[in-house]
């Protein structure tokens, strides 16, 4: 924290007073809470537990791959491990990660609202998540699924593992995702306070809005897909079964109609977080607000039309391939616009390399690589070679992990003081961020190389010439894992020993920084007035208050 902290209780800290954490006590007050902040926190704990599980699976996978053939487990176990790693990370961590955990906490606060539009639905959505996660866990016990998280037919309908309970788990998780998205859309439409026009909304909300649109419009198709899969597996309905005249490739179309937009469910909110942190920590107004806002919506719309780029080698016609390839390139443009605008935001700023900013800069670096390597895969001719190799694995890890998970960490470190009222050790948080950055790059840069050389994904055994790449990748993964242990230790330590946080520790101009840390149950003590959410320059550090305070009235906007 600031060297200048002198006051034992900084202005705006509510840990000693009444806040949403302390107002009601007891297990029931949490389990039946309708408070979006508490629900967000419960989501946070749950998805971090999932992340831990997925991470352990990842390390086991990387350990197995240290040598060709058997290292620590047999082929079937390995196949189950990578399936569960994918399913847990995607359905339990990355998809709900930013919207349901951070979004739930922050969205009403940023809007200056008391809660989301449907608090009971919000809680129901959380319990849907729990039920879906339990079904997924049940499938681990009944016979862990070994199909890959994509559940391609007819493999998934013929394997002897517990595909049905996993499919139902995914269906219920999808329901959770739909309810969250629906709730957010209605909240953003109907609960904006006076003065907050659409173009005065923080960009995180624009991003969540785009995300919610995809959640509501794409997830039902996943729902019917996994339902049909379960019916196919359980009753043999024949729609995806080639032995019965069905079409297994139709499943892929259905699956990717959801799962490609789902990639944007994962990355859009991450982009939203970056738009917030880059402005706050550069102490500069975000550059090109409207372009960033519209690009979120453009991504949401185009994302529905690109699913076929997962199927360039499945035998679809040249014309379809060309259309999907072209649209895939189009969807790259809004992302490029955002990256340029974020970079421009730093120009002539006053850049503070606090942990959220370190993660933000990591994001720009890693997402840059993830996005640019997408060009190789969007292009028809090069995709034929790279499809289903480690190049793809590296690409989507750069986007989902280097992009989404790193932005999630940026957001977590950014809003941590607001959520829990305490500051963490900045030095150690930066050490963790550095280890995550280095470990991540070593892990996945090696995978780009071996993928381009032709190493297929989901291989238990591999040819000896790929060994050096696999060893490098595994070593990188251990560094990455170690970075996470430190990050977790830093945050947990702050809960016990961290200095008290002021209302506005970073100088953010969005509304959540105007209430106490942690906020009261009703979010704001009085009426809030929305101004320009990126007028960060009006906040100055006040050593007496221990945090940032406004030195002039809010600007009217831009």
């Amino acid at each position, binding site marked *: 924290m600031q060297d200048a902290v002198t006051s034992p209780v900084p202005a705006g800290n509510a840990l000693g007073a009444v806040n949403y954490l302390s107002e009601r006590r007891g297990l029931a007050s949490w389990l039946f809470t309708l408070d979006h902040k508490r629900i967000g926190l419960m989501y946070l704990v749950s998805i971090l537990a999932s992340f831990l599980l997925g991470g352990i699976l990842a390390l086991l996978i990387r350990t197995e791959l240290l040598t060709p053939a058997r290292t620590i487990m047999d082929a079937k176990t390995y196949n189950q491990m990578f399936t569960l790693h994918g399913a847990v990370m995607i359905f339990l961590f990355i998809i709900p990660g930013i919207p349901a955990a951070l979004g739930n906490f922050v969205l009403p606060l940023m809007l200056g*609202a008391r809660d989301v539009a449907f608090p009971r639905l919000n809680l129901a959505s959380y319990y849907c998540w729990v039920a879906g996660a339990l079904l997924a866990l049940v499938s681990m016990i009944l016979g862990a699924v070994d199909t890959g998280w994509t559940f391609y037919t007819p493999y998934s309908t013929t394997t002897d593992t517990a595909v049905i309970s996993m499919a139902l788990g995914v269906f219920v998780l999808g329901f959770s995702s739909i309810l969250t998205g629906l709730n957010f859309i209605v909240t953003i439409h109907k*609960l904006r306070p006076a003065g907050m026009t659409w173009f005065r909304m923080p960009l995180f909300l624009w991003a969540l809005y785009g995300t919610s649109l995809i959640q509501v419009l794409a997830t039902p*198709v996943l729902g019917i897909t996994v339902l*049909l899969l379960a019916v196919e597996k359980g009753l043999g*309905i*024949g729609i995806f079964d080639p032995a019965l005249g069905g*079409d297994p490739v*139709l499943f892929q179309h259905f699956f990717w109609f959801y799962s490609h937009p789902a990639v944007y469910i994962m990355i859009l909110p991450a982009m939203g977080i970056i738009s917030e942190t880059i402005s706050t920590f550069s102490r500069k107004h975000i550059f090109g607000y409207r372009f960033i806002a519209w690009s979120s919506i453009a991504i949401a719309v185009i994302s529905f039309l690109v699913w076929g780029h997962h199927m360039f080698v499945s035998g679809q016609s040249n014309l379809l391939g060309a259309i999907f390839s072209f649209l895939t390139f189009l969807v790259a443009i809004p992302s490029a616009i955002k990256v340029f605008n974020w970079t421009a935001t730093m120009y002539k700023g006053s850049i503070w390399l606090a942990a959220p900013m370190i993660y933000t800069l990591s994001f720009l670096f890693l997402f840059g690589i993830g996005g640019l390597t997408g060009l190789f895969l969007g292009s028809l001719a090069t995709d034929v070679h790279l499809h289903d190799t480690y190049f793809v694995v590296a690409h989507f890890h750069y986007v989902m992990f280097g992009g989404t998970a790193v932005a999630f960490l940026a957001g977590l470190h950014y809003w941590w003081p607001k959520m829990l009222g305490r500051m963490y050790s900045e030095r150690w948080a930066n050490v963790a961020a550095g280890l995550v950055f280095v470990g991540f790059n070593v892990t996945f840069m090696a995978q780009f190389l071996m993928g381009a050389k032709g190493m297929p994904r989901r291989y238990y055994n591999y040819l000896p010439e790929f060994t050096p790449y696999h060893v490098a990748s595994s070593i990188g993964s251990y560094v990455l894992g170690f970075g996470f242990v430190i990050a977790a230790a830093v945050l947990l330590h702050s809960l016990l020993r961290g200095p008290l946080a002021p209302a506005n520790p970073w100088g953010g101009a969005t509304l959540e920084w105007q209430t106490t840390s942690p906020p009261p149950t009703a979010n704001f003590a009085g009426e809030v007035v929305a101004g320009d959410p990126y007028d960060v320059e009006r906040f100055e550090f006040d050593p007496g208050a221990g945090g940032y305070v406004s030195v002039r009235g809010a600007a009217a906007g831009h």
Partner: protein
Amino acid sequence: MSHAVEHAHDPHLQHHFATRKQQAEAGKLGMWLFLATEILLFSGLFCAYAVYRANHPEVFIYAHRFLDSTLGGINTLVLIFSSFTMAWAVRAAQIGAQKALQVLLALTLACGFGFLGIKYVEYHHKWKEGLLWGKRYAPQSQAHVPTGQEGAATHGRETAHDVPVVPKNVHLFFGIYFAMTGLHGLHVVAGMVVLGWLLLRARRGEFGSHYFTPVDLGGLYWHLVDLVWIFLFPLLYLIH
């Protein structure tokens, strides 16, 4: 401050909404979004239908005659009638006509039961005949006369289809039939649960001109369930 006054007087206004109008609008928008997701859920099946009908038209032409278009037609009328009673029920709630509201909700619910009853007769028949999906397809007799044959005979060009040439993979049609009508049936059941709950609340006199959002939203859902059937009926029963 006026908000607080309104809150104090209004048990139906949740604390985070400023006005009843805002709350009702939020509810309605949420419901429309939910209906959109329902349509998308079914659209997956409609896509599967389109793909298979395009790839295997002969299967659809052949197999649809095993469906009883008379029973299907009656069910269509039952649902259309129930939509009418539901719309009337919403109106009754708006003007606070308690008795009419209860009667109309009960009528709508009864239509739901009627629909499911007829559906049961149809399913039972298919089950007996072994006209089921994929792996369970085991027709009792290939010479079975399709029930739609009187209608077919009037169309001269269709006589060719009456020659008992059984196409391959007939079960694909029944797979899609059971998937679509089964999912629709589940939605009817869900709609009936909602209707039952509305009826209970209506009997307690909770609705009136000041507060009728639940009836309104439940009605929207019921209309969607009907609408899906309006598409299913011709697509499955009335193929030419």
